[in-house]
């Protein structure tokens, strides 16, 4: 086969062009640390990245909901605990008031102590987090418990919102205030009635009502505690999903640096050899040189 000089030059240039283009794509991988730097590098990996990005974003928003629900439930939990302690004190004071040793004045003094504690309970039942009345059901914009005389009435509703915290997983962000506190306020109101009328048997009868108040409170605390427990598990789960997604993403888009470095060296070597070989080919003499 006849080989012409211009063919040799052309092939040499084409080889260099190819090597340089490989070098370009490898050094893109090297500097970005990613093997997919263009959609056309791997169309399927690019499409997978779109769906992985969505999963990561979903996870992020679920985590934000977990944080918000945790805040509401933690505030609710501590309010319920506090109310439980206060109710125990009210009950103790009520037992003192039921004693025959106490004078009418002494009983009235106990009554005002109980009222102070009752007011504290009202304020706890109207607890807010992020400007949101947590025991109001969905009527979150106004205080759910309103006292008039010794009667405390509930103005919220039974609708406690639940939020999505995972695929097909929701959590209720609290308990309706009526379930937790209605029996509490009724019991205290009965007790105060007995104290005000200085009626020992009425006081004793009202103290019996406290057991249902304690049980309602306990049930609410149980629900809140269970949901907090769920959130703790979900937090761990979301964290591990996050790590999993990150790993998956890495597999799809991250360059294997060891491989990239080796490839880079290979191409560099090929480039050097080609340039060296090309140099000597280009300088190769033809008959004209020898003929002089």
């Amino acid at each position, binding site marked *: *086969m*006849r*080989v*012409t*000089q*211009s*063919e040799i*030059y*052309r*092939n040499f240039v*084409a080889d260099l062009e190819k090597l340089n283009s490989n070098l370009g794509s490898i050094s893109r991988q090297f500097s970005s640390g990613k093997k997919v*730097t*263009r*959609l*056309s*590098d*791997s*169309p*399927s990996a*690019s*499409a*997978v*990245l*779109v*769906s992985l*990005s*969505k999963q990561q*974003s*979903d996870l*992020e*928003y*679920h985590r*934000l*909901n977990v944080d*918000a*629900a945790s805040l*509401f439930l933690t505030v609710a939990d501590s309010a319920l605990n506090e109310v439980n302690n206060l109710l125990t004190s009210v009950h103790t004071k009520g037992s003192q008031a039921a004693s025959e040793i106490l004078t009418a004045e002494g009983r009235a003094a106990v009554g005002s102590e109980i009222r102070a504690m009752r007011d504290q309970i009202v304020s706890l039942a109207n607890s807010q987090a*992020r*400007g*949101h009345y947590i025991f*109001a*059901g*969905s*009527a*979150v*914009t106004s205080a759910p418990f309103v006292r008039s005389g010794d009667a405390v009435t509930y103005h919220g*509703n039974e*609708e406690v*919102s639940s*939020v*999505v915290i995972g695929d097909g997983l929701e959590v209720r*962000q609290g308990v309706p205030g009526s379930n937790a506190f209605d029996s509490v306020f009724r019991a205290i109101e009965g007790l105060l009635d007995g104290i005000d009328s200085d009626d020992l048997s009425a006081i004793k009868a009202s103290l019996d009502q406290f057991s249902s108040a304690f049980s309602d409170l306990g049930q609410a605390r149980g629900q809140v505690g269970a949901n907090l427990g769920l959130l703790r598990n979900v937090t761990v789960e979301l964290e591990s999903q996050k790590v999993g997604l990150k790993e998956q993403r890495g597999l799809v888009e991250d360059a294997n640096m060891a491989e990239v470095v080796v490839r880079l060296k290979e191409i560099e070597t090929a480039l050097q050899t080609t340039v060296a070989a090309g140099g000597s080919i280009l300088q190769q003499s*033809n*008959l*004209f040189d020898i*003929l002089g």
Partner: protein
Amino acid sequence: MPSLLSGLDMARQALAAQQYALSLTQRNVAHANDPYYTREAAVFTSSISGGVSLGPRVYIEAARDHFLDYGINRELQMLGKAEVTSEALQQIDALFRGSGGMDLQKAISDFFGSFTQLSSTPEDRILRQQVLSKADVLADTFHRLYSGMQRVQMSQNEAVRYTVDEINSLTSQIAVLNREIRAAQGSGSDEEFRLRDTRQQALEQLSGLVDLTYYETDSGSITVMTQQWSLLVLEDRSHDFSTVTSTEGTLELRLNGENVTNAIESGKLAGLIDVRDNKIGAYLQALDDLAATLVSRVNEQHALGSDRDGLAGGDLFVPFVPPDPTSNAGAASSIKVAITDPDRIAAAAAGAAAGNNENAKLIAAIADESLFGASQTANQFLAALVYRIGSDGKAAGDEMLTQKDVLQSLSNLRSSLSGVNLDEEAINIIKYQRAYQASARYVGVLDSLTNEIIQILGA
């Protein structure tokens, strides 16, 4: 038996022949690096008159293979298309990559995510404001991506105009060369071969631009047609492409009075039109479909809820009214948030209190609804578009590399036939030089012989 004097005549012809052959060699060496130059070889024959050889005659033979030329022309057309396609798709690719992931994907996820977040505290005005700003970002991202792709589309359109100018100038050049070659045809002169080289060069440049087929007629002219048999050059007349601006603002092609916009299959021109109308056209249509579907579905769900004040929800986005009812064209470029007061976001179920989050959750869930066909969510639709853009770009890039390889091997074949090898020329020079010297010596010998006769006769 020839006489002494006729021997001188033969020697004169031999000298002229070697000289001529030397001049060919010189021309070959001079054109050694011209890729379109066709090597010339001296062919020696004898001229015989009345059974008597009168010495050598030389004519030129150009080492040209028309099938190779034809093959190269075909590959150039495909390369022209692949190159321009790959180039344009790389720009689209860069638009879609964005920094740190794909902007539109993120904008959609953040928009629905802001509703997920709002569901935790639906009455919160800060979270409501966040929904509005994420909706704004979504609209802006659609606009940016859409106008970016449109810019690439328009630059393809502009390129159609100057490619047509280039084509017209090349076809008229070929027509002129046809006339000149016809005049020089058969002379076997160097001029004819150089004209043919120039015409081949013009033809190859033309092949990169438009699909064509051609054949040479007996007159030496070539007739050039598009693959759809529409005339480009016949004898010394060329037929110009012209452009007409369509109602959509794109340039349409006219050739010989016909609309050939979609009839060009390869070459740069076909690539430009394919990218403009089919590739980018389809991507823009996908963006429009995505935007229109999101707008109508989100509005529909939003209207089912109640806002912060308990009023029925209105439109969250300005409803898209397609100018052309058969397509969503214009949806992505016109998407706009309809409300400015965050209280108007309908996060609650109809008639429910401000703390109700049912509708916010339902809107957030649209992200996972099969809005497109049987089982494609918005995100999957976008993933499919990303895949399409990626694989179109990859296919064009791969085709470009393949075509380059094929062309290189064809060019090598051609240059092995038609190219100039300097060693060969060096040997030719020696060959012709020696023959010239030998003929000159022969003249010297004849001279001394005739001289001798003259001496004898003169004495």
